[in-house]
């Protein structure tokens, strides 16, 4: 996984609640067996149906910070939604809240999610409309700094933070507990009533 550090970029506003992963990347575009290429169809339905959608506006080119309302990423567990965002260049999403699975998936792909209070998010959504609102997000200090210099702190799990800052993924951590896992499975074998063998 790539390391996450400080991201400075104009913010792209998506003032919508409950943006589901079908909206982020429609199922018709999920037939690839790689992690690449999804960025081209990020928010495909909205891009096709709305000429004013921010991604269709040149002034938002190069934005790597997306700002949106609450419950972003609800619905399908498709990690392709995260791959579509990172594939299109996004490094940070700021919102009032995120759905659980999307939140987990993002942390596995160096996409930093920052939850800020509703009034702050509303302020950013409003200010960012003209594509000239530059925001700085720093994981180390867990802050989002606005153009006027005000810094807003966001919560971030310290274990996840360590992984993101150092580009570590879960597999090696879990494998470092291999002996515990083996012991657990040996113990569990006595109460094991299921095997898929022979299916």
């Amino acid at each position, binding site marked *: 996984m790539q390391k996450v550090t400080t991201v400075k970029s104009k913010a792209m506003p998506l*003032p*919508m*609640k*409950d943006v*589901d992963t*079908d*909206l982020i990347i*429609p*199922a*018709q575009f*999920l*037939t*690839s*067996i*790689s*992690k690449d290429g999804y960025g081209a169809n990020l928010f495909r*339905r909205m891009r*096709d149906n709305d000429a004013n959608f921010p991604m269709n506006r040149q002034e938002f080119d190069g934005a790597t910070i997306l700002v949106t*309302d*609450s419950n972003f990423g*609800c*619905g*399908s*567990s*498709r*990690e*392709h939604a*995260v791959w579509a965002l990172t594939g299109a260049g996004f490094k940070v999403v700021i919102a009032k*809240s995120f*759905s*659980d*699975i999307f939140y*987990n*998936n993002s942390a*596995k*792909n160096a996409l930093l999610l920052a939850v800020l209070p509703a009034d702050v998010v509303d302020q950013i959504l409003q200010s960012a409309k003209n594509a000239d609102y530059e925001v700085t997000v720093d994981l180390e200090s867990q802050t989002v700094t606005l153009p006027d210099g005000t810094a807003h702190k966001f919560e971030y*799990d*310290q*274990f996840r933070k360590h992984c993101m800052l150092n580009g570590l*993924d*879960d*597999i090696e*951590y*879990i*494998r470092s*507990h*291999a002996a*515990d*896992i083996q012991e*657990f*499975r040996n113990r*569990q074998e006595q*109460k094991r*009533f*299921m*095997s*898929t*063998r*022979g*299916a």
Partner: protein
Amino acid sequence: MSAAATKKAPEKAKKSTAKNIVEKIWDAHVVKQLEGHPCVFAIDLMLLHEVTSAQAFQLIESRNIQVFDPSRLLATIDHSTPTRQNRWEIYDEAARTQVETLRNNCKKHNIPFLDFDSGKQGIVHVVGPELGVTQPGMTIVCGDSHTSTHGAFGALAFGVGTSEVAHVMATGCLLQKKPQTMKVEFKGHFRKGVYAKDAILRLIGEIGVGGANGHVIEYVGEAVRAMSMEERMTVCNMSIECGARAGLIAPDEVTFKYLKGRAHAPAAENWDEAVAYWSSFCSDSESTFDKSVTIDLDKLEPIVTWGTNPAQNVGLSERIPKLETLVDNERAVAVRALEYTKLKEQQTLEGTPVEWAFVGSCTNGRIEDLRIVANVLKGRKVNQNVTMYVVPGSEAVMKQCQEEGLVEIFREAGADFRMPGCSMCLAMNDDQVPPGKRCISSSNRNFVGRQGPDSITHLASPATVAASAIAGCIKSPAEYV
């Protein structure tokens, strides 16, 4: 206005060592918990399908990691597969590659794979229970959010992304944080023409699409105890639609009876021991939950969605909410949704013309669902303006339909009975509702473009779908059942 009385009462004041079912399953699967770290959490079964697994195989192969335990994995193909008769030939090159990739990966890694015409292929959440691999007290994951379906058996079952699919392949474990818990009580009894689907849609409507974020739901109450396993699966299946991490139901005699004799259920000599173990997975009477909600079914009526998320739903006698009564950001969502679904505030849904009807999916594609649909369709005709797809959830369901004579009923009514798969629920294959067309659907999501670009979806029970297919417009099934 609603038939459901809700009360949300945080009741977290633990006094004893009493545990709820979620806590019991959690505790039984903690491999290692270090201070300040997430838990190394054991997963008993992972289900695989073609869309969310290829990149996980690539990851473990790139690191030369062996699959941890193939006897805890089970794979099938369902999402991007065709539902026409000659489905072995997949025209779409990317979908074909995806299916072949899973087939090859399973062979290479010795993972049981349920292929076309094995008699066992089907939607991953339909085949797990059918084969008896879904059992009480287990932890189950799949790269699919509707994995919560398996919670019907008293398993802790949840959807994960492809990275986590790789973690389980590699280690049999995930890094997890303990979820919060929520108790949902369904009390009272269903009226005629009202089903488990209506109950879960009502819950989602009450608490909203993010209402259970971060929580695992336990469904309790007399109505839940009276439900068949298939009805329980419908309820648990849609837990994710209110944001729940998972939803589950404590096992009972109904559960054990369903499991007994299934291919992968415990053998006779282990049966009593298994049942004794499974029975330990229930909430202690003194146990508590972080949140609780009660839904009264006595006055519940058939529910249909009007918007672009499953919470935007009303009973058929109710009206779409008046926009000015909604709070600000709910109103913005509703305005956008109504624009998309071409409906108006304060209108009722009954009588709205539909051009498509879909019965199927991991929510409502099981034999009991198809029997209900056949009962409605028997001796009647699908309206000439409606194209109706009936897609069995699995080859086993399809076979059962053939044996019970349901296939003839569907065909005589003018419905298209197709081969098993996810089909028009997410429209990854050719089964798409055309742009601008309106579909009444037994599936689980009415998101923008879910059933095809610019298609409009109304979620409902299989009976409501069948009644509407006959009428050519949204209609209560009450007079047909």
